[in-house]
């Protein structure tokens, strides 16, 4: 059985779904599994199990991994997904990759199939969890969502006791909204741009990595004067030392 330190790599956006050529973030999470040919299972729930997303996952991971996916919308059809025992299958993986989309819909569907508890078990056992966008927000206590209406706080699974705001560079309004919510008492947390990922060991942030030379992430917390935003130190994964696999301490 897999036992290790709980690890989550939360992408602000990016990975195989967005970055056609570079998926340095994906290479990074694969390296965390410590396996030559890791077992990687994709959870595309937040996209409604979109076929094009599943196809792109296999294109990216099937050559170097034991790749599979779990579809919660096609369980009656037996279409290449996992059919027999969801929990057994998920707990036998080295990496669980959660796709982007709508987090509220995803967590709703997960709960209906008991996946929230399975994921907690997987995390505790040291199966690496990762994902972009909704696949990042879901691991946190609070997330900022602007889906169908004004921005509001939505609850994630709460493995990481912080708030999270993704695609921080994509929409200028995000920063203003996130700051306002943190000032109003939302948990302090992390704002992350596309192409940047937060690596947590247990619940501590140990490293911030980026697939783009200019990618940024921030710690955002309330302070006496309102909200304080601190730029985090980021390791660029495209630098030659990383390409050669030399590790750089955080």
């Amino acid at each position, binding site marked *: 059985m897999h036992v290790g330190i709980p690890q989550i790599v939360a992408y602000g956006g990016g990975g195989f779904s967005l970055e056609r050529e570079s998926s340095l973030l994906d290479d990074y999470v694969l390296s965390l599994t410590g396996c030559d040919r890791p077992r990687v299972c994709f959870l595309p729930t*937040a996209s409604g199990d979109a076929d094009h997303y599943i196809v792109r996952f296999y294109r990216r991971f099937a050559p170097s991994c034991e790749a599979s996916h779990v579809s919660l*919308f096609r369980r009656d059809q037996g279409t290449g997904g996992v059919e027999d025992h969801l929990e057994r299958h998920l707990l036998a993986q080295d990496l669980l990759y959660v796709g982007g*989309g709508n987090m*509220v*819909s995803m967590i*709703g*569907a997960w709960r209906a199939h008991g996946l929230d508890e399975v994921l907690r078990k997987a995390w505790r056992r040291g199966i690496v969890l990762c994902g972009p966008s909704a696949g990042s927000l879901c691991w946190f206590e609070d997330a900022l969502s602007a*889906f169908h*209406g004004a921005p509001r706080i939505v609850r994630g699974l709460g493995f990481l006791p912080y708030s999270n705001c993704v695609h921080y560079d994509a929409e200028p309004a995000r920063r203003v909204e996130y700051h306002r919510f943190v000032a109003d008492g939302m948990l302090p947390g992390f704002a992350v741009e596309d192409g940047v990922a937060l690596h947590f060991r247990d619940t501590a942030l140990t490293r911030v990595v980026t697939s783009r030379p200019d990618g940024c992430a921030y710690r955002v917390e309330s302070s006496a004067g309102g909200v304080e935003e601190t730029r985090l130190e980021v390791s660029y994964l495209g630098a030659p030392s990383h390409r050669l696999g030399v590790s750089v301490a955080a």
Partner: protein
Amino acid sequence: MSEPVIFTMGGGGFTMEPSNPLLDDYVLSLASSPRPRILFLPTASGDTQPQMRAFQERFDCRACIPEPLSLFRLRDSRRPLHETLLAQDIIYVGGGSMRNMLAIWRAHDLDALLIEAWRRGIVLAGLSAGAMCWFQGGLTRSSGPPEPIAGLGLLDGSLTVHADGEPERLPVWLRCVREGSLPGGWALDDGVGLLFRGTRLVRAVSSRPGAGAERVDAIAGELVRQRLAVELLGAGEQPGASAEEEAIRELRQVRALRSGIPLDDL
């Protein structure tokens, strides 16, 4: 405020009968407006593109204002859900995973909004998962084998769908009704729709000759089964040629399912 209306289909409409618009035209006729606003909720399918496209293809050319609502796709989603829903004349719910659909609706508080819409007289229509969800219970294959599942409970009793198209459902539903894990209710073939005004069944209609429906109750541990009288819609005006096309399409679907090709790819 008008009387609540629900129209539940055992299967049929634009997602299953692309060349037979009888049930969908009937749905439009239930609204009091001559050009009703009709909202499609494809949640149970995961908001698949083929369902959304089929909806647009069916309703774009008809006297109505069609709009799909995705709970997954993020584009064009700044409008609050309650505004979108309560502005409609008709809300049409698609088929797929009933378990996922209800859980996702609850996560967005959409279940309460749908009940409010029903109370206000907005016509609620749907097929398969989108038909069973209005009852106390239904029979779902959301996790693989057919099993009972609770619905929103606006209508008394339980419903099972695709009684002819997916024959593995009916025996499981009958057993559930006999054993009491589901209340008595209706079994609908593909193409059959039941119209409820308030909580009262007022009409059974069909888009296909020969499609039927039955009412089933457990009385002292025995099943009492009664066929309903079903009116064929558009009788006399429907071209017979499309029946063969439908049969060919269904055959392809069955073959695809057996060989593991997702329906979306057809």
